[in-house]
């Protein structure tokens, strides 16, 4: 069955801490001190944090070396930092219009994503549950979903503008239509995977359709739903930045477009960094939410 499953709901592989623990355990006879007992925790954390920092530093050095010569088309990191220092240290300024700090742009983009993505989540879960109920609905609709989900977000924008005749709802619609497919597809697959055992139990105690939905379908499908939501939120963050470039106004997407038009390359680079970090945080947020909501669901 075709599942959009770039991300699995399974737990992530833990950091390699076994070696560090072995060292501590090997200490003979002495009661381990606080530092020693915390050792494994710290080394586990540093094993996670240190390598990316080293790689990042190396990349910055290479970048600096490559772009430091006069006549280079892109600024080196040192110049990016000096150019944008004011912008970085004061994300909350507001000079009216679109001349605002990074916080306001990101907040605006996020609010669009929040609305569009929330709609997609509700409608997507509902449709996914409906489609998952019936083999025929699944057979009929799945190929259509599979085609629709490959349409790039921006391709929807002109149609959306034609329909809504207004930039704001169009942007939200683009988010919605981009992120809904993985939610529908994963939810419906999840519903189809509900074990017959649960259905039998529900039949014996005579759960109504409504009770079955809340007490069986949703909890049993939660890991699948969150897989879909996680893919969806990533797609909607991709989509909003692109859509905002076209619709204008406050938002991190148009901020980049505006910076390009005024040749503020350093601003673009800072904005890209912010976009990446926010996207990363969104993904983690949904993953963490899924983890909390579905604790115990996957293990049986």
């Amino acid at each position, binding site marked *: 069955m075709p599942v959009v499953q770039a991300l699995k709901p399974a737990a992530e592989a833990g950091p390699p801490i076994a070696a560090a623990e072995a060292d501590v355990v090997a200490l003979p006879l002495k009661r381990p001190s606080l530092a020693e007992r915390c050792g494994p925790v710290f080394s586990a954390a540093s094993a996670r944090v240190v390598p990316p920092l080293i790689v990042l530093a190396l990349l910055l050095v290479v970048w600096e070396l490559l772009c430091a010569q006069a006549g280079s088309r892109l600024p080196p990191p040192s110049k990016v930092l000096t150019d944008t220092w004011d912008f970085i240290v004061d994300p909350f300024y507001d000079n009216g219009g679109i001349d605002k700090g990074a916080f306001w742009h990101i907040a605006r983009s996020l609010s669009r994503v929040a609305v569009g993505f929330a709609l997609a989540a509700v409608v997507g879960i509902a449709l996914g549950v409906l489609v998952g109920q019936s083999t025929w609905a699944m057979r009929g609709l799945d190929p259509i979903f599979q085609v629709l989900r490959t349409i790039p977000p921006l391709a929807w924008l002109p149609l959306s503008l034609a329909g809504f005749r207004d930039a704001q709802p169009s942007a939200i619609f683009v988010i919605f239509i981009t992120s809904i497919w993985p939610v529908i597809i994963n939810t419906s697959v999840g519903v189809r995977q509900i074990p017959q055992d649960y259905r039998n139990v529900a039949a014996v*105690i005579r759960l109504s359709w409504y009770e079955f939905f809340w007490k069986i379908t949703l909890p049993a499908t939660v890991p699948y739903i969150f897989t879909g939501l996680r893919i969806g939120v990533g797609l909607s963050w991709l989509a909003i930045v692109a859509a905002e470039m076209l619709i204008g106004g406050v938002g991190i997407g148009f901020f980049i477009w505006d910076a390009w038009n005024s040749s503020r390359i350093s601003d673009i680079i800072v904005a890209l960094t912010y976009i990446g970090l926010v996207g990363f945080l969104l993904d983690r947020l949904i993953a963490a939410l899924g983890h909390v909501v579905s604790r115990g669901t996957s293990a049986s």
Partner: protein
Amino acid sequence: MGAKAYLSFEQVGMSFRRGTHASEVLRDVDLRIGEGEYVSIIGHSGCGKSTLLNIVGGLLKSTTGEVFLEGQVVDAPGPDRAIVFQNHSLLPWLTVYGNVRIAVDKVFGGTKSSKERHDWVMHKLELVQMAQHKDKRPHEVSGGMKQRVGIARALAMQPKVLLMDEPFGALDALTRAHLQDSVMDIHAKLGNTVMMITHDVDEAVLLSDRIVMMTNGPSATIGEVLAVDLPRPRRRLELATDPEYTGCRAAVMAFLYSRHKLPSRAA
């Protein structure tokens, strides 16, 4: 047992259809079970025992004949015929308590207060010795404990008939013996009518008032019915040398392993 029919099977037959091809699994099953009676169904794997139990449970509809419970035709699943499933079938996102509570809320939601339902759940968990594990989730307890919770959930529905589909099949011998003793205790206390499927001869003899032996499929039916005239409470150690016990055991063995060893229409 001369008890009047409480649960009765009248000419029950079952065929499964795959496309145009229909395969007959059960034919002409006739059986009467008295109130409070403990009846085991024994037969080789694949003969149709689960199918028969699921028909009583209402999860399957027989293609011919009917099942009656207290004179009423059985045509849908319901809590008056609670099922203990072979694979426990607990909901993994609910605690031990929650798994029993969901059934109690549904069955007694209109007749018992919340406090009464809580006490009812706890009482059933105590009955299967799972009260101290009430806040654990199914994956945190052993296979035998899961099965105990499954039994508690079924008992909590206060069923007219308790249906058990190889309830101890997936357990090791020691755990199984423990659970069998628990089930005997509970049956002595509550006097439920029980229909249990098993493929274990000792289990059948130890627990049952009557053992229903099924012929091999396809078109399986009841081959013989054996009454086990052993006084209760029964203790497995004392029974090992009891002539009635060994006699029953030999009779069931003879049915299963000599007369119905090969898949053939019979008896």
